[in-house]
């Protein structure tokens, strides 16, 4: 009996965890080429869901609506990089991050104005039925979420490992100087990465909408929880980011079920805080971590 409750909580948690995992991956990707934490990452997820749902209500066929939303996410990501980050590439990191925060706020505000306060819905991609797994009842859309997450992760893996551009992205994050000497254009790559992260976020948002509904407000929480996943991997390890993102989803759902839904957020944020406190208390980054001025050669 207890076990079926467990799975009833765990599996949906893993499902939202898929979104967090993809967001975490977006953070890691953008950070690896630009050293910037893109605070608007969660908003792309929100916009993807809203845009797809809105297009659907206007009569656009479902697959087209999702495609359009994904492309819009990619374009937005590219625009954000080109317009708000590329011009200030040489300024301090905290200023660039604050700019992404501004962009996030703008996107949120615009979503509220254009889409309104009411949440939007999308039908399940293959209907609104349910299925059983380990004694838990899950909407069929869950399979779409899991499936598309696996596909996206696979696609990203292949991109990074097998394509020239993907290799160039990795090279840039490993050794920017050497990458430059090979003819890699870091500026162009940053644009590509931001576009990819935006597109992935938007797609994730569209796919999860049939389960959790799309709402102008959702980006903030998505972004924050995805970030927790990213930071557990030190913002460098994509694998840990994905696993941690799934973990956050699971922890959140289990906490809501076993403790109370009011406290679930506190548990998740408390985990982040505890993680940071322990890292800071146990490891002193002091010695190797001092930054030098830009008078560097």
């Amino acid at each position, binding site marked *: 009996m207890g076990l079926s409750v467990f799975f009833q909580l765990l599996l949906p948690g893993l499902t939202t965890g898929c979104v967090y995992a993809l967001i975490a991956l977006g953070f890691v990707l953008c950070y690896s080429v630009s050293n910037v934490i893109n605070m608007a990452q969660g908003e792309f997820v929100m916009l993807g869901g809203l845009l797809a749902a809105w297009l659907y209500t206007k009569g656009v066929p479902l697959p087209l609506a999702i495609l359009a939303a994904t492309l819009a996410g990619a374009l937005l990501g590219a625009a954000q990089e080109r317009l708000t980050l590329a011009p200030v590439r040489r300024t301090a990191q905290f200023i660039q991050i604050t700019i992404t925060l501004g962009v996030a706020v703008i996107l949120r505000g615009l979503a509220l104005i254009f889409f309104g306060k009411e949440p939007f819905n999308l039908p399940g991609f293959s209907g609104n039925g349910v299925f059983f797994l380990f004694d838990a009842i899950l909407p069929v859309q869950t399979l779409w979420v899991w499936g598309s997450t696996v596909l996206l992760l696979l696609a990203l893996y292949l991109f990074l490992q097998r394509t*020239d551009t993907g*290799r*160039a992205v*990795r*090279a840039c994050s*490993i*050794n920017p*100087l*050497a*990458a*430059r*000497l*090979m*003819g*890699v*254009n870091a500026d162009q790559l940053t644009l590509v990465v931001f576009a990819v992260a935006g597109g992935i976020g938007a797609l994730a948002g569209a796919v999860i909408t049939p389960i959790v509904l799309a709402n102008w407000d959702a980006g903030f929480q998505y972004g924050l929880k995805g970030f927790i996943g990213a930071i557990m991997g030190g913002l460098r390890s994509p694998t840990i980011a994905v696993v941690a993102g799934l973990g956050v989803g699971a922890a959140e759902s289990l906490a809501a079920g076993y403790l109370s839904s009011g406290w679930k957020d506190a548990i998740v944020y408390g985990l982040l805080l505890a993680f940071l406190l322990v890292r800071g208390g146990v490891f002193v980054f002091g010695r190797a971590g001092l930054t030098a001025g830009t*008078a560097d*050669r």
Partner: protein
Amino acid sequence: MSALLEIDGLVAGYGRTQVLHDVTLEVRAGEIVALIGANGAGKSTLLNAVMGLVSIAAGDIRFAGKSIRRLPTAAIVREGLVQVPERRQLFGSMTVEENLRMGAFAFRDRSRIATLMEQQFEQFPILRERRRQSASTLSGGEQQMLAIARAMMSAPRLMLLDEPSLGLAPLFVTRIFDQIKALRQNGGTILLVEQNARVALSIADRGYALESGRIAVAASAAELLYNPHVQDAYLGGAGSSSRAMEERIRAMRRAMQANAAAPRQSIQVT
């Protein structure tokens, strides 16, 4: 033989400091040219300037007659110039094979990449053995080979080698320089920057000695090898022009010490 690479009156540096002051040199096709000099003389800066990484204040750089001074690095690589940077600068967490692929980044022709990679494995069999290993697990000598192989993946016409002997045990130094000689055998042209002047001059055709951002001596390798000025450039010595400054500094210090010893002098202490 015509000059493949011509550097003409180059003035370049980082930010507000100019490191190179009016440097002129040339490399002809099929040669190994050595650029020697003490540290801080500007040797690496010169190589970086050729690759488009350093801002150029005056002068020109021409490759096969065409000015490359304003080209971006990717374009320079496509023209046929490549640099093997100081301390290798490999992509440590990538495999040997991936490092080689990155070397061909400026060219996207699939078939060419396969052929070129095969050539590198012929030249450096040890790399074939380790092709799927991560670059950071290779020994120093193997890493240097990989760095050179990676550069060869862009089928360059001229290779800039920055201190290949740096951080290598003497045994590996011999091997690497044998490889460099072999590269010339196969028709390559090399501009070799080295602090280890003896080794560099022993395989080079001609050499330039760089001192404080200027060419101090230009001669055939043989002449340079036995030129006392070269030794002076590194360590200073009797008969060198910089000995005069050294003497002045010493004299000044002695005078100060003598003054301080004299009891009459009163020093104002605020």
